[in-house]
């Protein structure tokens, strides 16, 4: 049984213009100790996916279908108490913007002590709380843990704040850590440090992680709220199968030269009136008739990869 399994998840947001059909049947799974990533352009539904898993969806959103199971339990139907327990002991999350994710009017000590206090059923003494806090801050590679503990978030740099966030998440992430692009709001070198840190921690502690990109065993490629391709990281990057993945990888500039990469023509479709069939149809160079009407399932391609594209259908579809 996988640790986490998301099946055919559909999530909608109600806004002025109507209903945004953001997630359109997202499926993914994660084994114990596995590192899985999700890549895709901004606003492709990555954040919505991870927030749904954590049960953190905004008020104007609605799960329109599908389920999320954690070790066989349905997270979406879980009682509040059980969900809190899961967050206390098993799963936690690191947010994208480290400055927004820390409460501005409490010191790190106040916030971290509370998290530690509620992560266990035992009553910890103040010394034990301090010991544990210093331990997680060390794991977060923060120097001078005592100074950090007495700081307010605004007294720390962005990189340090994200390390504090990671440390806090580590307290209760004994099995699964979800990281929503934890480095994008930082500068590139700091981002790199943060990603290396996460990788090290996850590997040492043997917990699973969904970061949104990089250093993972397996990745999911997302486009406009759908998973378009899935496979081991190396294979997906070396031989992308879905037309979107191919274009996406070509669009990444390379240090080895070769000129400015081509972008992907066209725009991400509106979530208000997404295409009825494949959501990539408006930009796909290989679009066929069937793509307008039917959403493609994930077809196995090669040994380990799967792509949601009718190009891999056995039948001869009219072009």
């Amino acid at each position, binding site marked *: 049984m996988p640790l986490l399994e998301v099946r055919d998840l559909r999530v909608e947001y*109600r*806004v*002025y*213009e109507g209903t945004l059909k953001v997630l359109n049947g997202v499926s993914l799974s994660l084994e114990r100790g596995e590192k899985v990533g999700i890549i895709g352009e901004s606003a492709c539904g990555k954040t919505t996916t991870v927030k749904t898993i954590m049960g953190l969806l905004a008020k*104007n959103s609605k799960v329109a279908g599908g389920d999320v199971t954690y070790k066989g339990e349905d997270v979406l139907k879980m009682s509040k108490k059980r969900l809190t327990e899961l967050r206390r002991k098993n799963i936690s999350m690191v947010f994208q913007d480290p400055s927004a994710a820390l409460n501005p009017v409490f010191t790190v000590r106040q916030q971290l002590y509370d998290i530690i206090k509620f992560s266990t059923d035992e009553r910890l003494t103040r010394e034990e709380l301090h010991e544990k806090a210093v331990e997680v801050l060390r794991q977060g590679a923060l120097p001078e843990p005592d100074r950090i503990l007495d700081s307010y978030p605004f007294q720390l740099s962005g990189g340090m704040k994200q390390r504090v966030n990671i440390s806090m998440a580590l307290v209760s992430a004994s099995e699964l850590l979800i990281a929503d692009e934890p480095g994008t709001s930082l500068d590139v070198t700091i981002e790199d440090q943060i990603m290396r840190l996460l990788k090290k921690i996850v590997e040492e502690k043997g917990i699973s992680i969904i970061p949104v990109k990089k250093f993972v065993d397996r990745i999911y490629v997302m486009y406009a709220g759908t998973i378009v391709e899935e496979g081991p990281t190396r294979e997906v990057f070396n031989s992308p199968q879905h037309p979107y993945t191919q274009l996406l990888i070509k669009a990444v500039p390379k240090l080895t030269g070769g000129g400015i990469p081509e972008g992907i023509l066209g725009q991400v479709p509106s979530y208000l009136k997404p295409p009825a069939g494949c959501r990539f149809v408006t930009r796909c160079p290989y679009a066929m008739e069937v793509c307008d009407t039917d959403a493609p399932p994930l077809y196995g391609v090669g040994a380990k990869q799967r792509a949601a594209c009718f190009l891999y259908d056995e039948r001869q579809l009219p072009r």
Partner: protein
Amino acid sequence: MKSSRTLREVYGRYWYKFSKNDLSIVGLACIAGVVLIALLAQWISPYPASAGLYVNFGNAGAAPSASHIFGTDQNGRDILSRVFFGFRYSLMLVAVVLSVTVAPGVVLGLVAGYYVNRWFSAVIMRLADIFVAVPPLLLALSVASVLTPSAINAMLAVSLAWWPWYTRLVYSSASSIRNEDFVRAAELVGASRWHIMFKEILPNNLGSVLTKVTLDCGWVILIGASLSFVGLGAQAPTPDLGTMIAEGSAYLPGQWWISIFPALAIVVVILGFNLLGDGINDMFASGVA
């Protein structure tokens, strides 16, 4: 792109944001009704003569009935008619006070905010500080008391207490907007100072000023009514809601209608302006949801 959206779409969106809350519509309806009643008071009042020095002691303090829906007061005047004319006075107070305070207050705030490092900016703001160092009601009360109490002087007194709030509102946003790129860009291409203040900075404050104006309509009426309640505002026989409540309260609890109906009328006006103000605030709020 502004040009690619039609006017209709822009207004449609404003209207959607305004009308999303049913209460905003209720507020709009209240105020529209009150304005209409005030304009047409002479023609729709059942007893227009009651607005003035009319007395009919034979019919004094009559309970609400079919001929006098809100009853009559201690002088036998029809309360419904007086309430209708009272709306007229309340709206006049609002119109006078806000028309003489909003524009100067906003302009002073703009100037002080744009020239934030110049000496006159400090002078303007310290002057505003002086005026807000006591509650507006108290300032209005003391000014009204020094002048001879009357409707006009009440308006003057309230106005004196009112302008600095606009200056401060506009100042705080103007002094930060002046550092934005679009203002810098306008300066670089040599736009005139007036252009920058009124065409670049002011439009960014319009939403908050408009919201404040609407909400203030309620406050001004409240302060005006408070002045006349203690006898420092409009004097008899002006049909002023605050005076009516004060005079009627002497006849409580027996002849409750003399004070309660004017009180209800004032509640409707203030509530209407507040609901409307909230709607206007929603209208200018950012965000899609």
